[in-house]
């Protein structure tokens, strides 16, 4: 189809083709309206909360930060490091909503508040929830994610597989309703199930760059909607409250089949 006659819908059918000047004006108007629509779309996205990790990682994420009112998954290749990274996300989400609370839901929550405080999560906002049965834990996570007074929710299942696809979709919807961050922290697998989570990370503990009270992690972004998988080696500095990237590299793509 020739480009000139594509989108000229304002003219009633049957009118002769206009002169060159008019078509150019129409095209200019069309481009302007398209640009305005794109700007509106990104402005709507701009009002959604975003969690900033650090400048280097934010630059590679499609929205300039981790989207706030969504579900994210963390696969714990090493439990301490994954808990630390999850706590960092919770702390940053709570900073966006200063009057909000952070809920930590697990079969037997063993979070140590003095350690969490070093990652930026103030323990006075923390509520621990003990849910021995999986369906109770899921229900509690969904209720908490839906509540606007909760800034962030963490569902920690160290032993069993995370919730299935339907449950994850419900959690995603609940997070969008409530506006708070929802993080699923589960065991590491080589074949994670497809999930509607906005992003999925795998966190390992790294030895280089680590100091006393300065953890070093290897963060691997496995998938992100609209983003590219990548791997970073970072350290966390509790005094400066800063995550610094030592090295970043693209992950090799695994071919399916």
């Amino acid at each position: 189809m020739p480009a000139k006659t594509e989108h000229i819908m304002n003219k009633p059918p049957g009118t002769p083709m206009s002169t060159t000047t008019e078509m150019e004006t129409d095209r200019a108007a069309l481009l302007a309206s398209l640009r305005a629509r794109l700007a509106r779309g990104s402005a709507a996205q701009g009002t959604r909360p975003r969690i900033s990790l650090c400048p280097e990682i934010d630059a590679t994420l499609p929205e300039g930060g981790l989207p706030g009112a969504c579900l994210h998954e963390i696969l714990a290749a090493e439990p301490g490091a994954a808990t630390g990274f999850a706590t960092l996300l919770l702390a940053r989400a709570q900073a966006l909503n200063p009057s909000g609370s952070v809920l930590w839901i697990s079969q037997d929550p063993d979070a140590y508040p003095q350690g969490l405080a070093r990652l930026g999560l103030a323990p006075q906002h923390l509520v621990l929830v003990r849910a021995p049965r999986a369906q109770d834990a899921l229900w509690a996570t969904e209720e908490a994610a839906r509540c606007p007074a909760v800034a962030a929710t963490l569902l920690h299942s160290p032993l069993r597989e995370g919730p299935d696809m339907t449950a994850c979709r419900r959690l995603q919807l609940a997070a969008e309703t409530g506006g708070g961050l929802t993080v699923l922290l589960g065991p590491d697998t080589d074949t994670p199930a497809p999930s509607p989570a906005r992003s999925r990370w795998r966190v390992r503990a790294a030895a280089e760059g680590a100091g006393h009270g300065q953890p070093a992690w290897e963060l691997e972004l496995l998938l992100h909607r609209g983003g590219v998988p990548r791997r970073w080696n970072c350290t966390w500095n509790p005094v400066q409250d800063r995550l610094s990237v030592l090295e970043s590299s693209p992950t090799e793509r695994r071919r399916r089949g």
Partner: protein
Amino acid sequence: MGAARHLVLLIPDAARWAEWSRRFSPLVGVVAEDALAMEVSGLTHLSGGEEGFLDQVRQGFARAGQDVPALLGGAWPALLALLRGGWRDRVLSPAEQAHAWPTLHPRTLPLPKRDIVTLHRAGLRRLQDIRDQHRAVVTYRMRDGLLKILDQVAGEAPAPIAPVREPPIQSVTEDYTAPLITRPALDMALERLLTRLCAHLHEAGLGARRMALAGWRMDGSWQEVTAGSGLASCQAEKWAMLFREPLGKLRPELGFERFALSTDHVDPLRASQPGLDASTPPEVLGRLLDRLAQRVELWRLQPLPSYWPERSTQRLDAHAQVAPEWITPVPRPVRLLRRPKVLHATATPAGAPLRLELEGRTHQVLHAWGPERLEPEWWRNARARSRDYYAVQLADGPRWWVCRTGKPDDPDPRWYLHGLMG
């Protein structure tokens, strides 16, 4: 002694029937192994007077399969004595009662058999005769308990009833001619009761913290479900939501014929205003925490002034405020294992670990920061051993918080993995 009216009835195994009898009066007590006493002042007008109330109680027990002799009158010790003396199924006015009890034999009183025999042999075969004697003589011959009991029977000494359950602060009840079986019927009944009770609470300026719904079934049994809230509230919708799940635990079977909704824990209501800015009020969080508390356990942590890791935090109710002062001068783990895992370690002579073995896997230690020696709190446990904590960085990445109990030159050092550091 005042104008309190009581109803006393004789029933074998009274303790079993005590809670069920709360359908008639909120204050029921077991006064003897086979007798119940309930205070009924102010209740009888709803049943058409005292005669009607007495009939109702007897019919209620008859439907449950018990034929109970009952008396309604003033002081309950006199009524109990009259029941034992053979009186039954009457409403006694104060004058009638005052004339009736002096004619009783002492065996109607709760006295040991020996005393009854002594009184009988002494010729005191009516309570009036005992009263006619000089008090000091009776006290000298018998024990003081006899006079106290007589004073209670006469209504001159107080005789409080120890209730089987504390009467609630506020309570509303409803009787149904057609028993309620289905869940929608229960929901509607609860809604009606909640509207009434919340209206009472609102008028009194109180908010309920705990409500109990008791239902009496047709076959003479009863069930109760409770719901609690962290924030005092008198809003019927909120309580209806809190009761949604507990209501499922009720088993109607043949149907409920009577419901009583009561509250025993209230707080004065403060008019709460929503914040002027857009921040969500703590009410929203409170409601969420109440909803979660129905199914799962939740708490907050408060710092305790103790450096011992297991005792450095204290659990608080999730609605409580926690102090914002958490001091962490030294790096601490993000997760503290509840059951520390046993390690086997090879250590330098100074005590720092070189190699750690956990559950069969060996890990090389790159660096160990420490030792941080924590002496146990001797006033709690005199036999505890001191601990040296090390934050170790393993060659393959993880950072652990390990401790060795005992001193470095101890012949039997034990190593544990106590926490995982971020």
